[in-house]
């Protein structure tokens, strides 16, 4: 079966993996991991400069040299005002109207504040942003976000950085079923390529992850492993997998089996 291209906001992407740029052991490992992953989009942030070493400048030079598209985030913002202001600042610095919108509502689980998220999304869409909302699998919230003008949804698999995989497979399936035409990207909680493949097999369009690659013992190899896992999962989805059964069914034909005329049990 021929797969359809992955498209978000009229941009067609060749890779279904979006990669975060934080927590790598070094800038060189980050650059090698991005290349190994095949990702065409990486997430970035805005922060206060720490010290006089111009780390921000060298980081931005490195990203530009990779030739990838950037998706700035509003990570850590805890109010609508903070998120909207951060998005406006990011648009100017990164020269893109794409924004990964995070409004965090809980310190322990970094759960999205979905009420603030919808409000901020409405403001940002009106201001011309292309919003990528970090949300939950809640159907009503998804409906509000799409209604606000979000053309992509990014539900969490599990809490950010937890590596727990897909906490609510049933909920994610329901979201996929209810929004068949909206690109859905799992954002957060992925720990292994198996988790990513499982999400792709559910029909999700792409995976956004960071910690699982950056904090792996060998981030570059893990980046490649995720690329393969995501491709495998997508291929499997497009190939229409069999459904689980309660009973075994022999795969080898029974007709012509030797001794088939003997009683089943001695």
């Amino acid at each position, binding site marked *: 079966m021929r797969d359809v291209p992955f498209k978000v906001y009229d941009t067609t992407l060749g890779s279904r993996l979006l990669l*975060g*740029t*934080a*927590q*790598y052991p070094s800038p060189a490992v*980050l650059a090698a991991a991005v290349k190994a992953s095949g990702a065409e989009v990486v*997430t*970035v*942030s*805005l*922060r*206060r*400069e720490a010290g006089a070493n*111009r*780390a*921000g*400048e060298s*980081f*931005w030079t490195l*990203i530009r040299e990779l030739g990838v598209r950037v998706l*700035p*985030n509003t*990570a850590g913002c805890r109010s609508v*005002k*903070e998120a909207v*202001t951060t998005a*406006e*600042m*990011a648009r*100017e*610095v*990164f020269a893109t109207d794409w924004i990964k919108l995070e409004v965090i509502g809980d310190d322990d689980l970094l759960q999205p504040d979905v009420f603030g998220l919808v409000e901020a999304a409405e403001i940002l869409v009106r201001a011309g942003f292309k919003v990528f909302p970090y949300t939950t699998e809640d159907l009503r919230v998804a409906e509000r976000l799409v209604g606000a003008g979000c053309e992509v949804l990014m539900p969490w698999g599990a809490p*950010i*950085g937890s590596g727990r995989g897909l906490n609510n497979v049933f909920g994610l399936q329901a979201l996929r079923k209810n929004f068949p035409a909206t690109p859905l990207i799992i954002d957060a909680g992925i720990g292994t390529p198996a988790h990513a493949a499982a999400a792709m097999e559910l029909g999700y369009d792409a995976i956004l992850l*960071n*910690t699982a690659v950056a904090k792996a013992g060998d981030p570059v190899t893990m980046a490649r492993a995720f690329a393969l896992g995501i491709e495998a999962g997508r291929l499997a989805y497009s190939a229409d997998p069999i459904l689980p059964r309660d009973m075994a069914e022999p795969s080898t034909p029974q007709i012509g089996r030797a001794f088939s005329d003997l009683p089943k049990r001695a």
Partner: protein
Amino acid sequence: MQIHVNGKAHEVAATTLAALLAELDYHDKLVATAVNQTFVRATDRPATPLKPGDAVEILVPRQGG
């Protein structure tokens, strides 16, 4: 006058946001600015006055997830 820059108190001579960036050696850097949690475009910095107690954010590109 005293203002806050990135959460820290600063005694500054600058009376505009553009002058503050020059005073703090940010004038040739790629930064985004906000005053009292409101975004200020680069083109608006020369005409953005500062007053005592203002909270200025000066942000640079960094790694993100």
